[in-house]
């Protein structure tokens, strides 16, 4: 293990190398990040024995990802923003064919207006396409979650692709200290990929045939079952990671901060939770009973865990870094749906779209709203 100051994107590239990924189909230019750049460098320097497929678009990156996993190779790709949007057509095909693999998404706004900055609209709007979605807060968690991601995704009870979401710029371009595990440590934690099914000339098999009306729904039910299975598998990966590396992130699904004795809490995803912690520390010193629920796993959605986390609260505020235009924040919708039986105030705040900074004073305002019994959230400018 070495500890060094590393950019989050480079920490992810290192995690990909340590996970002994075999194929990386990637489209390297804007809106991508330093992730493909560093992976290409590792491969070119002979430090990483993998095949880089230099594709002509993200649509092709996703298609090659599918083909690569079909042949039984551990596969990784990375993208962001419009790049993910261009992959959209292939996302449900990968999950529908039950191909495991990991993609890192540096979450950024979707145009228009043109924005290169952080929000969650790219990945959140793909949440129904059968990919497990984990959301990280720090560079360390980004590195750790890539490694865990393969273990979860390849689990025989899961067999689904997994997306590791890390905030564009707000995390992707941040330099901070990261523990980088050794290859031997990662090898011990993450066994070689043993695909349940793969393309094999000796044992021919068809993937992705037509699903007639009498069978299609059965496939979808199996996918849904696998997603629900993933809840336990994500938890298990988190706890076994702790045994191996000494680090964990809540129960793997939710990461709670200062929730003991809390009356009010904010709920969010990604780096905004770090800033929320600073606000909570400050308010706790003033005697305010406030805490944070960080959603680490958005799909599958940890409904029971959430119900348990909020049961003693008076009110919660959900911060969405995305808006389902014409409705509300999608995270808010999920949370309200999960806790509709509870007698609790739940307010929706839309924040940080297109890179607008989310600050400690935003959280102070939100907690003040909750304490004053306000029944409605707002857009935080």
């Amino acid at each position, binding site marked *: 293990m070495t500890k060094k*100051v590393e950019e989050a994107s480079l920490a992810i590239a290192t995690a990909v190398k340590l996970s002994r990924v075999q194929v990386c189909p990637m489209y390297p230019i804007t809106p991508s990040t330093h992730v493909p750049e560093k992976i290409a460098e590792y491969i070119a320097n002979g430090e990483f024995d993998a095949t880089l497929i230099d594709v002509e678009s993200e649509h092709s990156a996703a298609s090659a990802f599918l083909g690569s996993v079909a042949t039984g190779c551990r596969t990784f790709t990375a993208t962001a923003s419009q790049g993910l949007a261009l992959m959209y057509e292939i996302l449900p095909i990968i999950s529908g064919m039950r191909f495991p693999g990991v993609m890192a998404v540096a979450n950024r706004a979707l145009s228009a207006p043109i924005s290169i900055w952080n929000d969650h609209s790219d990945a959140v709007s793909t949440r129904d396409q059968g990919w497990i979605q984990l959301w990280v807060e720090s560079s360390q968690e980004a590195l750790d979650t890539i490694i865990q991601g393969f273990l979860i995704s390849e689990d025989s009870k899961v067999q689904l692709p997994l997306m590791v979401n890390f905030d564009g*710029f707000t995390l992707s*371009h*941040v330099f*901070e200290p990261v523990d980088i595990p050794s290859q031997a440590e990662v090898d011990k934690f993450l066994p070689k990929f043993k695909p349940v099914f793969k393309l094999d000339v000796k044992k021919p098999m068809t993937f992705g045939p037509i699903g007639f009306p009498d069978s299609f729904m059965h496939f979808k039910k199996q996918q849904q079952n696998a997603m629900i299975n993933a809840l336990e598998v994500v938890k298990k990966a988190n706890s076994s990671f702790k045994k191996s590396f000494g680090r964990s992130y809540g129960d793997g699904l939710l990461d709670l901060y200062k929730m003991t004795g809390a009356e009010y809490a904010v709920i969010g995803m990604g780096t905004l939770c*770090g800033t929320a912690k*600073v606000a909570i520390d400050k308010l706790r010193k003033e005697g305010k009973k406030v805490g944070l629920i960080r959603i680490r796993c958005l799909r599958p959605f940890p409904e029971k865990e959430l119900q348990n986390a909020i049961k003693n609260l008076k009110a919660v505020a959900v911060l969405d870094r995305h808006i389902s235009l014409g409705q509300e924040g999608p995270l808010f919708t999920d949370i309200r749906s999960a806790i509709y039986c509870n007698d609790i105030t739940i307010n929706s705040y839309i924040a940080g779209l297109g890179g607008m900074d989310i600050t400690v004073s935003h959280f102070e305002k939100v907690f003040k709203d909750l304490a004053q019994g306000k029944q409605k959230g707002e857009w935080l400018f």
Partner: protein
Amino acid sequence: MTLKEIRLHGRGGQGAVTSTQVLAIAAFHDGKYSQAFPNFGVERTGAPVESYVRIDEKPVNLRQHVYDPDYVIVLDTSLIDDVDVTKGLQKNGIVIVNSDKNAAELKKKLGNFNIHSINITKIALDIIGKPFVNIASLGAFCALSKEVSLEALNKAIDELFTAKGKAAVAELNKKAAKAVAEVCK
């Protein structure tokens, strides 16, 4: 030690991001936690850019931009005409400006802060042979703030450049940073 925040102003192409990266690595070598990040705009050579560093004894959770810095470093004196470089700066905050003007003259423009004017460009030209001030300016930060040691800065420069096979670049930058630090004593 409490959280310390540094805001660095530069122009596109001056290496502001690399500078803050090196400072974060240096603080880490001094046994502290650190965080460096740029305020990305649409990068064009010569356009004003900002990059930030946080240093603390405990892990840095805060992810907002730096609004109330303890230290400001200005890599190009002409920026003080275009950008409010002391915006939000803490009372008694230290400002390090790469300039050939004297501090009293800069004070008229920047207000009553702890202002240090150092001709870093001249030192860089003498030692490196090129106006590379991004790393050299950190010598002034080490000497004036005492937040980071010059030894740790040297280690950080080595980590970034020597590892990439640029040992000569590392040596020149270390020499320039040391020379800048000495002027500040």
